[in-house]
């Protein structure tokens, strides 16, 4: 296939981006190379619209072992124990194919965590749907819940907390954010940085198929009426293989043969091999004929861009291949030496004894586009004056009943009962409270985790909304008796090419940054999901915050249920009577405007 500007545009690249590629390579790329560039330079992988702003987030702290930039963040919970955690979005695939989209979202985030050597000990999720009356909502909700359960339950990792909301702004774009926490010994954390020359590059896990090709590019575009045609870009999950992969990887990690390890997530073999080479300032050479394929006659292009799930790339110490292969054989998983590290600082691919790609690694990573997008500031809306006659005829009991029956407030037990939340035998606070809590197995310690977002506040005033979500996460952890340590964030927004949406992003990030700086609650990992829009209509800005805290003695954990008759009930903090953007104001008074409650960090 001849590559030209039109082919590049069809791959989601902009014309000037294509020109830049030709200039960097000093030639026209072939189709495999173009595919690799399009995968690495799309919004999902390159963070080209967000990088500039994410740099401003506080990411350091006494307890931070690893901040953003690795597969997941890592924090210290003392006694040589560490928690690895991250949240990630799988919004676009879940809207196209809810079961597989949600399932592979859960699978992907668990892989990010066990890639670092940690055994996953808890899952959480934050899911957002359109109006309950919308014709698609019921099916999407059912599919997503079954998908999350189908994957997490099979893996044997408890789902300990979550959040479900409904708002018509998600009618054409649902959100599925999945978070995983893993436990690891501080001296046994694995990273993705390759090191050493001529080290064998190993492929393990499932075979590569034609599923999920261009998944990451799909996630970097808006939806239109042809969305159903994108179904083949959704990956298909196999939690059984992932469970085997988890056990096999942890078994191999108990030894000392791994130099670097990286899961094949978005953009599959392409991004995993390039990230490892880039971090190690090395080159990598791969013989694509050695890649285990599920289907016959797969081309280099397809092999490099497949997003088949449950696969890992490992750089091993020389001479450890046999020992490692034995472990993967035991677990019935594919194991293949597919290449080696080189000093060329290039990614060089061979297929049928021909060189099919030859790209300097830095052109894909450091030279990837970075945009300072135009953005618009949101003014603080004026407070509404509520007239007495508006509320005069309201009966408190009727209002209370209506609010408690609201889909955003009512019990979600019917959802979380479909998730195994007790497997592993350490869940001491189940879903339904302020935060989920699991014990650190065999110790007195426990880890609390919560996911929060408040799209309405972020929509009304992004800066305040951003602060508010971080504070809410902090309060939820404190409410169960935990000391908050750090957060991960999943930033779900509309198109960065739209000034208003970009403004919402910039100001929410600023709010998140201010609050986490003040509370010493740093951001250690996260992900950005743009283009959550159908045609020109974007979602309400929905940054999701996943907070993690430590309870030193789990017997001191606090639960929210009333314990005895005649106990005193106290309210801490001043009740200012702020009513704008409350559920009461929005649903009972039908007043959608006004500022969110002010956040006072001090």
């Amino acid at each position: 296939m001849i590559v030209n500007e039109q082919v590049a545009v069809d791959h989601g690249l902009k014309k000037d981006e294509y020109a830049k590629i030709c200039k960097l390579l000093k030639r026209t790329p072939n189709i495999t190379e173009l595919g690799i560039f399009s995968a690495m330079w799309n919004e999902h992988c390159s963070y080209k619209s967000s990088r500039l702003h994410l740099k401003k987030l506080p990411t350091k702290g006494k307890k931070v072992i690893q901040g953003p930039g690795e597969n997941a963040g890592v924090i210290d919970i003392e006694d040589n124990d560490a928690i690895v955690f991250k949240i990630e979005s799988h919004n676009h695939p879940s809207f196209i194919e809810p079961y597989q989209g949600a399932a592979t979202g859960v699978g992907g985030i668990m892989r990010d965590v066990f890639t670092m050597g940690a055994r996953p000990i808890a899952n959480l999720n934050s899911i957002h749907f359109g109006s309950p009356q919308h014709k698609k909502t019921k099916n999407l909700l059912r599919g997503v819940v079954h998908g999350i359960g189908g994957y997490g339950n099979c893996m044997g990792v408890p789902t300990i907390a979550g959040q479900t909301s409904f708002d018509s702004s998600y009618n054409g774009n649902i959100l599925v954010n999945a978070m995983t926490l893993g436990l690891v010994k501080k001296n046994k954390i694995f990273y993705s940085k390759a090191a050493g020359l001529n080290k064998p590059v190993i492929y393990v896990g499932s075979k590569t198929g034609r599923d999920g090709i261009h998944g990451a590019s799909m996630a970097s575009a808006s939806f239109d009426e042809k969305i159903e045609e994108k179904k083949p870009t959704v990956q298909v999950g196999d939690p059984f293989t992932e469970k085997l992969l988890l056990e096999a990887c942890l078994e191999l990690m108990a030894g000392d043969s791994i130099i670097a390890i990286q899961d094949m997530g978005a953009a599959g073999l392409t991004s995993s091999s390039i990230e490892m080479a880039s971090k190690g300032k090395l080159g990598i050479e791969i013989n694509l004929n050695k890649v285990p394929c599920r289907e016959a006659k797969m081309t280099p292009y397809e092999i490099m861009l497949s997003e088949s799930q449950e696969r890992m790339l490992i750089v091993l110490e020389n001479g450890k291949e046999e020992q490692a292969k034995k472990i993967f054989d035991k677990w019935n998983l594919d194991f293949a030496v597919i290449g080696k590290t080189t000093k060329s600082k290039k990614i060089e691919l061979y297929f049928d004894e021909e060189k099919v790609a030859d790209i300097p690694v830095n052109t894909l990573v450091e030279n990837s586009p970075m945009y300072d997008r135009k953005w618009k500031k949101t003014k603080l809306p004026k407070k509404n004056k509520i007239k007495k006659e508006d509320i005069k005829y309201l009966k408190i009991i009727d209002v209370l009943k209506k609010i408690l029956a609201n889909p955003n407030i009512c019990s979600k037990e019917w959802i979380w009962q479909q998730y195994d939340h007790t497997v592993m035998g350490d869940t001491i606070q189940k879903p339904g409270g302020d935060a989920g809590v699991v014990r650190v197995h065999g110790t007195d310690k426990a880890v609390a985790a919560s996911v929060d977002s408040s799209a309405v506040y972020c929509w009304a005033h992004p800066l305040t909304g951003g602060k508010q979500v971080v504070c809410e996460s902090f309060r939820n952890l404190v409410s169960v008796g935990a000391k908050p340590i750090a957060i991960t964030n999943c930033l779900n927004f509309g198109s960065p090419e739209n000034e208003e949406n970009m403004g919402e992003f910039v100001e929410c990030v600023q709010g998140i940054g201010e609050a986490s700086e003040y509370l010493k609650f740093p951001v250690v990992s996260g992900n950005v999901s743009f283009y959550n829009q159908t045609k020109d209509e974007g979602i309400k800005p929905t940054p999701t915050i996943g907070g993690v805290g430590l309870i030193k003695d789990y017997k001191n954990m606090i639960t929210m249920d009333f314990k005895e008759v005649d106990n005193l009930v106290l309210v801490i903090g001043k009740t200012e009577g702020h009513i704008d953007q409350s559920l009461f104001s929005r649903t009972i008074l039908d007043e959608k405007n006004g500022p969110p409650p002010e956040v006072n960090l001090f």
Partner: protein
Amino acid sequence: MKSSVITFPGSNCDRDMDVALKKFGFKNKMVWHADAELPKSDLVVLPGGFSYGDYLRCGSMASKSKIMQSVINFANSGGMVMGICNGFQILVETGLVPGVLLRNKYLEFICKNVFVKINNKQNKYFKSVNNEVLEFHIAHNEGNYFCTQDQLKEIEDNNQIAINYCDENGKIEDQFNPNGSIKNIAGIFNKEKNVLGMMPHPERMIDTSLSGEDGSLFFKNLIKNLK
């Protein structure tokens, strides 16, 4: 007392069972599905999970694993074999206990506490348990016990029903049946009562900080009866 827990590919309650057995005094060994020989055991446990991903039919492929021939021989010679959840599904696939396990009636996975009434205490599993009703925990998608009318008659005639879903007072009614099981059956024995298959997970009920403590009662009693 020596126990063995079999790990199949996809088992995920094997560690939890190991923790529970050791807590109550068993010397437990983990046994790999591809091994041929069972270590000397007073109790063999097939744990919960998703052996072989529940592909084909829950428990079906695991029932053909290499180790299972030894487990079947052990059971047929009177050895104590207990299958929990996926382990129960494996047991029905081997034919060691009668019947099958269908998908839950409402087609959803269910994870929650339930009450079960002990139907038969003339066996080493439940002998001298003081309570009539235990609070256990279930987490499954295919726990809807089914068998033919003839099989049911035989099961009842031989007093093979171990536990039934009920309310906290032991009332066995449809409304307390979480998955549509025939006669609210939550667990059954083989004829000789040395093999027990049940959906609830006693290993998740061994600590007041967890879902409850009736699992502790079960294991304490079990090791006492085996001595």
